[in-house]
Protein backbone atom coordinates (compact mmCIF):
# COMPACT_ATOMS: atom_id res chain seq x y z
CA UNK A 1 0.00 0.00 0.00
CA UNK A 2 2.82 2.34 1.00
CA UNK A 3 4.75 1.43 -2.12
CA UNK A 4 1.71 2.16 -4.30
CA UNK A 5 1.32 5.55 -2.60
CA UNK A 6 4.96 6.42 -3.31
CA UNK A 7 4.58 5.57 -6.98
CA UNK A 8 1.43 7.71 -7.22
CA UNK A 9 3.19 10.60 -5.53
CA UNK A 10 6.02 10.36 -8.05
CA UNK A 11 3.63 10.38 -10.97
CA UNK A 12 1.73 13.27 -9.43
CA UNK A 13 4.97 15.18 -8.84
CA UNK A 14 5.94 14.79 -12.50
CA UNK A 15 2.38 15.67 -13.55
CA UNK A 16 2.36 18.87 -11.49
CA UNK A 17 5.79 19.93 -12.74
CA UNK A 18 4.77 19.12 -16.30
CA UNK A 19 1.69 21.28 -15.80
CA UNK A 20 4.07 24.08 -14.86
CA UNK A 21 5.95 23.52 -18.13
CA UNK A 22 2.64 23.36 -19.94
CA UNK A 23 1.74 26.85 -18.76
CA UNK A 24 5.10 28.04 -20.00
CA UNK A 25 4.84 26.40 -23.43
CA UNK A 26 1.32 27.67 -24.10
CA UNK A 27 1.80 31.29 -23.13
CA UNK A 28 -0.47 32.76 -20.53
CA UNK A 29 -4.06 33.78 -20.68
CA UNK A 30 -3.58 35.23 -17.26
CA UNK A 31 -1.70 38.22 -15.89
CA UNK A 32 1.73 37.17 -14.59
CA UNK A 33 1.05 38.52 -11.11
CA UNK A 34 -1.91 36.18 -10.81
CA UNK A 35 0.13 33.03 -11.42
CA UNK A 36 0.04 30.49 -8.65
CA UNK A 37 3.33 28.85 -7.72
CA UNK A 38 3.46 25.13 -8.42
CA UNK A 39 3.75 23.09 -5.22
CA UNK A 40 3.56 19.42 -4.43
CA UNK A 41 0.19 18.56 -2.91
CA UNK A 42 -0.22 15.55 -0.68
CA UNK A 43 -3.25 13.90 -2.28
CA UNK A 44 -5.79 14.10 -5.09
CA UNK A 45 -8.05 16.45 -3.14
CA UNK A 46 -5.18 18.89 -2.78
CA UNK A 47 -4.43 18.62 -6.51
CA UNK A 48 -8.04 19.35 -7.35
CA UNK A 49 -7.94 22.36 -5.03
CA UNK A 50 -4.87 23.67 -6.86
CA UNK A 51 -6.55 23.13 -10.21
CA UNK A 52 -9.68 24.96 -9.07
CA UNK A 53 -7.57 27.96 -8.09
CA UNK A 54 -5.83 28.02 -11.46
CA UNK A 55 -8.80 29.67 -13.12
CA UNK A 56 -8.61 31.07 -16.63
CA UNK A 57 -9.65 34.56 -17.52
CA UNK A 58 -10.92 35.60 -20.94
CA UNK A 59 -11.15 39.30 -21.80
CA UNK A 60 -13.56 39.61 -24.69
CA UNK A 61 -13.48 42.80 -26.72
CA UNK A 62 -16.23 43.52 -29.23
CA UNK A 63 -15.20 41.83 -32.48
CA UNK A 64 -14.75 43.98 -35.63
CA UNK A 65 -18.04 42.59 -36.93
CA UNK A 66 -19.87 43.59 -33.74
CA UNK A 67 -18.26 47.07 -33.80
CA UNK A 68 -19.36 47.59 -37.41
CA UNK A 69 -22.87 46.38 -36.58
CA UNK A 70 -23.06 48.90 -33.70
CA UNK A 71 -22.11 51.74 -36.04
CA UNK A 72 -24.74 50.73 -38.58
CA UNK A 73 -27.43 50.21 -35.95
CA UNK A 74 -26.85 53.77 -34.75
CA UNK A 75 -27.94 54.98 -38.19
CA UNK A 76 -24.50 56.17 -39.30
CA UNK A 77 -23.71 56.65 -42.98
CA UNK A 78 -20.95 54.84 -44.88
CA UNK A 79 -17.83 56.83 -45.70
CA UNK A 80 -15.11 55.05 -47.66
CA UNK A 81 -12.65 57.86 -46.94
CA UNK A 82 -12.52 56.78 -43.29
CA UNK A 83 -11.20 53.30 -44.09
CA UNK A 84 -7.52 52.43 -44.19
CA UNK A 85 -6.70 52.36 -47.93
CA UNK A 86 -5.85 48.87 -49.19
CA UNK A 87 -2.89 50.40 -51.04
CA UNK A 88 -1.18 50.60 -47.63
CA UNK A 89 -0.86 46.81 -47.30
CA UNK A 90 2.71 46.63 -48.54
CA UNK A 91 3.92 49.16 -45.97
CA UNK A 92 3.23 46.82 -43.03
CA UNK A 93 6.25 44.61 -42.48
CA UNK A 94 6.55 44.11 -38.73
CA UNK A 95 4.42 41.59 -36.83
CA UNK A 96 2.95 44.41 -34.73
CA UNK A 97 1.91 46.43 -37.80
CA UNK A 98 0.47 43.36 -39.51
CA UNK A 99 -1.45 42.27 -36.39
CA UNK A 100 -2.93 45.72 -35.77
CA UNK A 101 -3.86 46.12 -39.42
CA UNK A 102 -5.37 42.66 -39.64
CA UNK A 103 -7.79 43.98 -37.01
CA UNK A 104 -8.17 47.32 -38.82
CA UNK A 105 -8.84 45.74 -42.21
CA UNK A 106 -11.24 43.19 -40.70
CA UNK A 107 -13.22 46.05 -39.15
CA UNK A 108 -13.16 47.93 -42.49
CA UNK A 109 -14.34 44.89 -44.41
CA UNK A 110 -17.10 44.29 -41.84
CA UNK A 111 -18.16 47.92 -42.25
CA UNK A 112 -18.10 47.58 -46.06
CA UNK A 113 -20.06 44.32 -45.91
CA UNK A 114 -22.85 45.77 -43.75
CA UNK A 115 -23.27 48.66 -46.18
CA UNK A 116 -23.21 46.30 -49.17
CA UNK A 117 -20.07 47.84 -50.68
CA UNK A 118 -19.37 44.74 -52.72
CA UNK A 119 -16.16 45.61 -54.56
CA UNK A 120 -14.66 47.20 -51.44
CA UNK A 121 -15.53 44.08 -49.49
CA UNK A 122 -13.46 41.90 -51.82
CA UNK A 123 -10.57 44.37 -51.77
CA UNK A 124 -10.55 44.52 -47.97
CA UNK A 125 -10.80 40.75 -47.65
CA UNK A 126 -7.69 40.51 -49.85
CA UNK A 127 -5.94 43.11 -47.65
CA UNK A 128 -6.85 41.16 -44.50
CA UNK A 129 -5.61 37.96 -46.18
CA UNK A 130 -2.28 39.61 -46.90
CA UNK A 131 -1.91 40.56 -43.21
CA UNK A 132 -2.90 37.07 -42.03
CA UNK A 133 -0.50 35.44 -44.51
CA UNK A 134 2.27 37.80 -43.37
CA UNK A 135 1.71 36.70 -39.77
CA UNK A 136 1.99 33.07 -40.88
CA UNK A 137 -1.61 32.31 -39.98
CA UNK A 138 -2.30 29.20 -41.97
CA UNK A 139 -5.66 28.86 -43.69
CA UNK A 140 -7.17 31.92 -41.96
CA UNK A 141 -8.40 33.39 -45.22
CA UNK A 142 -8.13 31.12 -48.23
CA UNK A 143 -8.75 31.85 -51.88
CA UNK A 144 -11.90 29.73 -51.63
CA UNK A 145 -13.24 32.17 -48.99
CA UNK A 146 -12.74 35.06 -51.41
CA UNK A 147 -14.34 33.04 -54.24
CA UNK A 148 -17.21 32.22 -51.89
CA UNK A 149 -17.61 35.93 -51.11
CA UNK A 150 -17.75 36.77 -54.82
CA UNK A 151 -20.35 34.05 -55.43
CA UNK A 152 -22.54 35.30 -52.57
CA UNK A 153 -21.91 39.00 -52.95
CA UNK A 154 -25.60 39.84 -52.61
CA UNK A 155 -26.27 37.50 -49.72
CA UNK A 156 -25.54 39.49 -46.56
CA UNK A 157 -26.06 36.51 -44.24
CA UNK A 158 -23.47 34.39 -46.03
CA UNK A 159 -21.08 37.35 -46.18
CA UNK A 160 -21.30 37.94 -42.43
CA UNK A 161 -20.77 34.23 -41.84
CA UNK A 162 -17.61 34.27 -43.98
CA UNK A 163 -16.28 37.41 -42.24
CA UNK A 164 -16.96 35.87 -38.83
CA UNK A 165 -15.37 32.53 -39.80
CA UNK A 166 -12.21 34.07 -41.20
CA UNK A 167 -11.78 36.25 -38.11
CA UNK A 168 -12.25 33.24 -35.87
CA UNK A 169 -9.71 31.28 -37.94
CA UNK A 170 -7.14 34.04 -37.32
CA UNK A 171 -7.60 34.51 -33.60
CA UNK A 172 -7.98 30.80 -32.85
CA UNK A 173 -4.78 30.06 -34.78
CA UNK A 174 -2.87 32.70 -32.82
CA UNK A 175 -4.28 31.56 -29.45
CA UNK A 176 -3.64 27.90 -30.20
CA UNK A 177 -0.11 28.53 -31.38
CA UNK A 178 1.12 30.36 -28.33
CA UNK A 179 0.77 33.89 -29.75
CA UNK A 180 -1.73 35.53 -27.38
CA UNK A 181 0.09 38.88 -27.68
CA UNK A 182 -0.44 38.93 -31.46
CA UNK A 183 -4.07 37.81 -31.00
CA UNK A 184 -4.59 40.68 -28.55
CA UNK A 185 -3.07 43.18 -31.00
CA UNK A 186 -5.44 42.03 -33.75
CA UNK A 187 -8.39 42.64 -31.42
CA UNK A 188 -7.05 46.04 -30.36
CA UNK A 189 -6.58 47.07 -34.02
CA UNK A 190 -10.19 46.16 -34.79
CA UNK A 191 -11.59 47.85 -31.70
CA UNK A 192 -9.66 51.10 -32.25
CA UNK A 193 -10.72 51.18 -35.92
CA UNK A 194 -14.37 50.82 -34.91
CA UNK A 195 -14.00 53.62 -32.38
CA UNK A 196 -12.18 55.80 -34.93
CA UNK A 197 -14.88 55.37 -37.58
CA UNK A 198 -17.61 56.06 -34.99
CA UNK A 199 -16.01 59.24 -33.68
CA UNK A 200 -15.36 60.54 -37.21
CA UNK A 201 -18.99 59.98 -38.19
CA UNK A 202 -20.41 62.12 -35.39
CA UNK A 203 -21.56 65.55 -36.49
CA UNK A 204 -20.73 67.78 -33.52
CA UNK A 205 -23.64 70.04 -34.50
CA UNK A 206 -25.99 67.12 -33.85
CA UNK A 207 -24.31 65.95 -30.67
CA UNK A 208 -27.24 65.87 -28.25
CA UNK A 209 -29.40 62.78 -28.57
CA UNK A 210 -27.05 61.29 -31.17
CA UNK A 211 -27.34 57.50 -30.96
CA UNK A 212 -23.78 57.01 -32.20
CA UNK A 213 -22.49 59.14 -29.31
CA UNK A 214 -24.26 56.72 -26.98
CA UNK A 215 -22.45 53.77 -28.59
CA UNK A 216 -19.12 55.64 -28.22
CA UNK A 217 -19.78 56.23 -24.50
CA UNK A 218 -20.51 52.49 -24.19
CA UNK A 219 -16.91 51.79 -25.21
CA UNK A 220 -15.84 53.09 -21.80
CA UNK A 221 -17.19 49.78 -20.49
CA UNK A 222 -14.58 47.92 -22.56
CA UNK A 223 -11.49 49.99 -21.78
CA UNK A 224 -10.54 47.99 -18.68
CA UNK A 225 -11.19 44.74 -20.55
CA UNK A 226 -8.82 46.00 -23.23
CA UNK A 227 -6.13 46.89 -20.69
CA UNK A 228 -6.50 43.52 -18.95
CA UNK A 229 -6.22 41.76 -22.29
CA UNK A 230 -2.96 43.58 -23.03
CA UNK A 231 -1.74 43.15 -19.47
CA UNK A 232 -1.86 39.38 -19.87
CA UNK A 233 0.93 39.77 -22.47
CA UNK A 234 2.83 42.44 -20.54
CA UNK A 235 6.56 42.27 -21.18
CA UNK A 236 6.11 41.92 -24.92
CA UNK A 237 7.66 45.21 -26.21
CA UNK A 238 4.92 45.79 -28.81
CA UNK A 239 2.22 45.21 -26.20
CA UNK A 240 3.96 47.47 -23.70
CA UNK A 241 3.96 50.28 -26.30
CA UNK A 242 0.28 49.71 -26.97
CA UNK A 243 -0.54 49.83 -23.27
CA UNK A 244 0.88 53.34 -23.11
CA UNK A 245 -1.34 54.39 -26.02
CA UNK A 246 -4.43 52.77 -24.52
CA UNK A 247 -3.68 54.45 -21.16
CA UNK A 248 -4.13 57.83 -22.94
CA UNK A 249 -7.56 56.68 -24.08
CA UNK A 250 -8.45 55.54 -20.59
CA UNK A 251 -7.55 58.96 -19.21
CA UNK A 252 -10.17 60.53 -21.48
CA UNK A 253 -12.78 57.81 -20.89
CA UNK A 254 -12.30 58.32 -17.15
CA UNK A 255 -13.72 61.82 -17.58
CA UNK A 256 -17.04 60.31 -18.64
CA UNK A 257 -19.44 59.17 -15.94
CA UNK A 258 -21.79 56.26 -16.46
CA UNK A 259 -24.39 55.67 -13.74
CA UNK A 260 -26.46 52.53 -14.02
CA UNK A 261 -29.39 51.49 -11.85
CA UNK A 262 -29.30 47.89 -10.54
CA UNK A 263 -29.89 45.31 -13.26
CA UNK A 264 -33.22 43.47 -13.00
CA UNK A 265 -33.63 40.31 -15.12
CA UNK A 266 -37.12 39.82 -16.54
CA UNK A 267 -37.93 36.62 -18.40
CA UNK A 268 -40.17 36.84 -21.43
CA UNK A 269 -41.67 33.37 -21.97
CA UNK A 270 -43.09 34.21 -25.40
CA UNK A 271 -39.65 34.85 -26.91
CA UNK A 272 -37.72 32.67 -24.42
CA UNK A 273 -35.50 35.69 -23.85
CA UNK A 274 -34.41 37.43 -20.68
CA UNK A 275 -34.51 41.23 -20.70
CA UNK A 276 -31.92 42.83 -18.43
CA UNK A 277 -33.68 45.98 -17.27
CA UNK A 278 -31.71 48.98 -16.02
CA UNK A 279 -31.50 52.70 -16.63
CA UNK A 280 -28.33 54.51 -17.54
CA UNK A 281 -27.18 58.11 -17.13
CA UNK A 282 -24.09 59.44 -18.86
CA UNK A 283 -22.44 62.84 -19.04
CA UNK A 284 -20.02 63.22 -21.96
CA UNK A 285 -19.70 66.87 -22.99
CA UNK A 286 -18.86 67.95 -26.56
CA UNK A 287 -15.43 69.08 -25.26
CA UNK A 288 -14.65 65.61 -23.87
CA UNK A 289 -15.92 64.06 -27.10
CA UNK A 290 -13.58 66.27 -29.13
CA UNK A 291 -10.67 65.27 -26.91
CA UNK A 292 -11.58 61.58 -27.19
CA UNK A 293 -11.95 61.87 -30.95
CA UNK A 294 -8.52 63.48 -31.22
CA UNK A 295 -6.77 60.84 -29.06
CA UNK A 296 -8.44 57.99 -30.97
CA UNK A 297 -7.42 59.51 -34.31
CA UNK A 298 -3.82 59.91 -33.13
CA UNK A 299 -3.63 56.26 -32.01
CA UNK A 300 -5.41 54.89 -35.08
CA UNK A 301 -3.24 56.93 -37.44
CA UNK A 302 -0.14 55.57 -35.72
CA UNK A 303 -1.44 52.04 -36.49
CA UNK A 304 -2.05 52.62 -40.19
CA UNK A 305 0.82 54.95 -41.11
Amino acid at each position, binding site marked *: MNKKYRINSGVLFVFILALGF*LTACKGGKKAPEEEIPVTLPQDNAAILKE*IKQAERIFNALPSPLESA*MLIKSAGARFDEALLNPVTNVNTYVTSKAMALNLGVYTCDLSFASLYEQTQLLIDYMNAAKKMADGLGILKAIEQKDIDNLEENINNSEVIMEIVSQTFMNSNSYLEDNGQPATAAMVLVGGWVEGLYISTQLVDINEFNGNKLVG*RIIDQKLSIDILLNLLNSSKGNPAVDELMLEVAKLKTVFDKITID*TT*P*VRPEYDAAS*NTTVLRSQIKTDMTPAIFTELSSVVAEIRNSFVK
Partner: protein
Amino acid sequence: MRLFKTITLTAFIICTLSGYADAQCKAFAKKECLPELGTYTHDGNYHAAVLIEGEEAELYKTFYSDMEYRVAIVGEDKLPAIEFRIIDTNKNVLYSNKDKDYASTWDFKLESSQQLKLVIKVSSFNQAGDTPASGCVAIMFGFKLKK
Protein backbone atom coordinates in the same frame (compact mmCIF):
# COMPACT_ATOMS: atom_id res chain seq x y z
CA MET B 1 19.23 12.85 -13.52
CA ARG B 2 16.70 10.15 -14.36
CA LEU B 3 13.94 12.21 -12.73
CA PHE B 4 15.03 15.28 -14.73
CA LYS B 5 14.85 13.25 -17.98
CA THR B 6 11.39 11.99 -17.05
CA ILE B 7 10.16 15.50 -16.29
CA THR B 8 11.63 16.92 -19.51
CA LEU B 9 10.14 14.11 -21.58
CA THR B 10 6.74 14.46 -19.89
CA ALA B 11 6.79 18.23 -20.40
CA PHE B 12 7.70 17.74 -24.07
CA ILE B 13 4.88 15.24 -24.57
CA ILE B 14 2.38 17.49 -22.80
CA CYS B 15 3.48 20.54 -24.83
CA THR B 16 3.07 18.54 -28.04
CA LEU B 17 -0.26 17.10 -26.93
CA SER B 18 -1.39 20.54 -25.82
CA GLY B 19 -0.98 21.88 -29.38
CA TYR B 20 -2.92 18.85 -30.58
CA ALA B 21 -5.56 19.37 -27.86
CA ASP B 22 -5.92 23.04 -28.82
CA ALA B 23 -6.37 22.16 -32.48
CA GLN B 24 -8.95 19.58 -31.42
CA CYS B 25 -10.57 22.26 -29.26
CA LYS B 26 -10.96 24.57 -32.25
CA ALA B 27 -12.52 21.76 -34.27
CA PHE B 28 -14.81 20.96 -31.35
CA ALA B 29 -15.82 24.63 -30.97
CA LYS B 30 -16.68 24.87 -34.66
CA LYS B 31 -18.53 21.57 -34.81
CA GLU B 32 -20.38 21.53 -31.50
CA CYS B 33 -20.65 25.10 -30.19
CA LEU B 34 -21.08 27.21 -33.32
CA PRO B 35 -24.33 25.46 -34.43
CA GLU B 36 -25.81 26.25 -30.99
CA LEU B 37 -25.89 29.94 -32.02
CA GLY B 38 -28.70 29.11 -34.47
CA THR B 39 -30.00 32.21 -36.25
CA TYR B 40 -27.69 34.57 -34.33
CA THR B 41 -24.55 35.85 -36.12
CA HIS B 42 -21.36 34.61 -34.50
CA ASP B 43 -19.26 37.62 -33.52
CA GLY B 44 -16.10 35.88 -34.78
CA ASN B 45 -14.32 35.78 -31.42
CA TYR B 46 -12.85 32.48 -30.23
CA HIS B 47 -12.86 31.46 -26.59
CA ALA B 48 -12.08 27.84 -25.87
CA ALA B 49 -9.76 25.98 -23.56
CA VAL B 50 -9.11 22.56 -22.16
CA LEU B 51 -10.53 22.62 -18.64
CA ILE B 52 -10.30 20.05 -15.88
CA GLU B 53 -13.08 18.74 -13.69
CA GLY B 54 -13.73 21.34 -10.96
CA GLU B 55 -11.92 24.12 -12.82
CA GLU B 56 -13.45 27.59 -13.22
CA ALA B 57 -13.01 30.17 -15.94
CA GLU B 58 -14.18 33.77 -16.12
CA LEU B 59 -15.01 35.88 -19.13
CA TYR B 60 -15.57 39.65 -19.18
CA LYS B 61 -17.50 41.26 -22.01
CA THR B 62 -19.51 44.38 -22.76
CA PHE B 63 -22.99 43.79 -24.14
CA TYR B 64 -24.85 46.54 -26.00
CA SER B 65 -28.41 47.74 -25.74
CA ASP B 66 -28.89 47.68 -29.52
CA MET B 67 -28.40 43.93 -29.76
CA GLU B 68 -30.00 40.65 -28.84
CA TYR B 69 -27.49 38.05 -27.73
CA ARG B 70 -27.16 34.32 -27.42
CA VAL B 71 -24.33 32.85 -25.38
CA ALA B 72 -23.48 29.20 -26.04
CA ILE B 73 -21.22 27.25 -23.70
CA VAL B 74 -20.52 23.66 -24.61
CA GLY B 75 -18.18 21.08 -23.10
CA GLU B 76 -16.98 17.78 -24.49
CA ASP B 77 -19.09 14.72 -23.64
CA LYS B 78 -16.37 13.26 -21.41
CA LEU B 79 -16.76 16.23 -19.03
CA PRO B 80 -19.42 16.49 -16.33
CA ALA B 81 -22.08 19.19 -16.68
CA ILE B 82 -20.87 22.72 -17.41
CA GLU B 83 -22.36 25.31 -15.10
CA PHE B 84 -22.40 28.98 -16.03
CA ARG B 85 -23.55 32.12 -14.27
CA ILE B 86 -23.94 35.66 -15.57
CA ILE B 87 -22.98 38.30 -13.02
CA ASP B 88 -23.27 42.09 -13.17
CA THR B 89 -20.73 44.61 -11.89
CA ASN B 90 -22.46 44.65 -8.49
CA LYS B 91 -21.88 40.90 -8.20
CA ASN B 92 -25.57 40.06 -8.59
CA VAL B 93 -26.22 36.75 -10.33
CA LEU B 94 -28.55 37.51 -13.25
CA TYR B 95 -28.75 33.99 -14.61
CA SER B 96 -27.56 30.50 -13.71
CA ASN B 97 -28.00 27.60 -16.10
CA LYS B 98 -28.09 25.30 -13.05
CA ASP B 99 -31.71 26.44 -12.62
CA LYS B 100 -32.41 25.45 -16.24
CA ASP B 101 -31.06 21.90 -16.16
CA TYR B 102 -27.60 23.05 -17.31
CA ALA B 103 -28.91 24.50 -20.59
CA SER B 104 -26.05 25.21 -22.99
CA THR B 105 -27.48 28.48 -24.32
CA TRP B 106 -29.04 31.64 -22.93
CA ASP B 107 -30.81 34.34 -24.95
CA PHE B 108 -30.93 37.89 -23.60
CA LYS B 109 -31.15 41.56 -24.46
CA LEU B 110 -30.39 44.67 -22.47
CA GLU B 111 -32.21 47.91 -21.76
CA SER B 112 -28.83 49.63 -21.33
CA SER B 113 -25.32 48.49 -22.23
CA GLN B 114 -23.52 46.60 -19.48
CA GLN B 115 -20.23 44.92 -18.76
CA LEU B 116 -21.03 41.43 -17.51
CA LYS B 117 -18.98 38.57 -16.15
CA LEU B 118 -19.54 34.95 -17.11
CA VAL B 119 -18.33 32.38 -14.63
CA ILE B 120 -17.98 28.95 -16.17
CA LYS B 121 -17.41 25.95 -13.96
CA VAL B 122 -16.84 22.34 -14.91
CA SER B 123 -18.75 20.47 -12.21
CA SER B 124 -17.35 17.34 -10.62
CA PHE B 125 -18.10 13.64 -11.02
CA ASN B 126 -17.23 13.37 -7.29
CA GLN B 127 -15.35 10.12 -7.72
CA ALA B 128 -12.55 10.22 -5.15
CA GLY B 129 -9.22 8.82 -6.28
CA ASP B 130 -9.96 8.96 -10.00
CA THR B 131 -7.90 11.10 -12.36
CA PRO B 132 -9.96 14.25 -12.95
CA ALA B 133 -11.65 14.36 -16.34
CA SER B 134 -10.46 17.04 -18.75
CA GLY B 135 -11.81 18.28 -22.05
CA CYS B 136 -12.54 21.23 -24.24
CA VAL B 137 -15.03 23.90 -23.25
CA ALA B 138 -16.04 26.45 -25.89
CA ILE B 139 -17.78 29.79 -25.30
CA MET B 140 -19.33 31.65 -28.21
CA PHE B 141 -21.50 34.72 -28.63
CA GLY B 142 -24.04 35.38 -31.32
CA PHE B 143 -25.87 38.64 -31.89
CA LYS B 144 -28.59 40.19 -33.99
CA LEU B 145 -30.08 43.65 -34.12
CA LYS B 146 -32.83 44.23 -31.62
CA LYS B 147 -36.28 44.16 -33.22
